[in-house]
């Protein structure tokens, strides 16, 4: 059973546009929600993470929105660039920073110049 559900599976965005990726979870014990970026042939790299005590976190062009009551969180990439083209994974764990991460199935983002 997929503990973290992610959509869409793939996404095509024009340069300068906003990319939005959504995730949902059921386990209310999750309290750490990171997003990872993965380029072909590379391991996932931590992009940004949020705890459930805040509803939004912004780092540069990347923003996480978190809705605790709906058990949903999303990644927004503002001013998307061709260099952002990669696969993005949401994840969750039951202890902040804990190493047993449950990953979503990934979203392949393509940013068209």
């Amino acid at each position, binding site marked *: 059973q997929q503990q973290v559900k992610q959509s869409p599976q793939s996404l095509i965005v024009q340069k300068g546009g906003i990319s939005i990726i959504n995730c949902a979870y059921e386990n209310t014990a999750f309290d750490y929600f990171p997003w990872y970026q993965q380029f072909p042939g*590379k391991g996932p*790299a*931590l992009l940004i993470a949020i705890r459930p005590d805040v509803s939004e976190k912004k780092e540069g062009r990347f923003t996480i929105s978190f809705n605790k009551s709906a058990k949903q969180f999303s990644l927004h990439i503002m001013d998307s660039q061709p260099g952002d083209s990669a696969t993005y*994974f949401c994840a969750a764990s039951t202890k902040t920073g804990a*190493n*047993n*991460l449950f990953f979503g*199935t*990934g979203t392949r983002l393509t940013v068209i110049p």
Partner: protein
Amino acid sequence: DAGVTQSPTHLIKTRGQHVTLRCSPISGHKSVSWYQQVLGQGPQFIFQYYEKEERGRGNFPDRFSARQFPNYSSELNVNALLLGDSALYLCASSLGLASPKGQFFGPGTRLTVL
């Protein structure tokens, strides 16, 4: 600073064989976790080791085993390989058992089982 390193980069084995994958964590990191990433899917947690002890295990059969050495490097062993074991095996390191700054992943070992 060097990141997480893994060896080998690629590996081809046949069904029934065993394989050993190696991981060196970032200097100062004491926790190593292993993940399996099947093509087109997100990584799945296999093991976590901290201070040479197993601290977590995912839903994988006993054919999978691991250990951590005094220098915090780690090995993942898989016995009696099946075709379904073909995947990218990722190692991730972190400072401690539950690190607020998260885990750092290596580039992975691509295992192909024929």
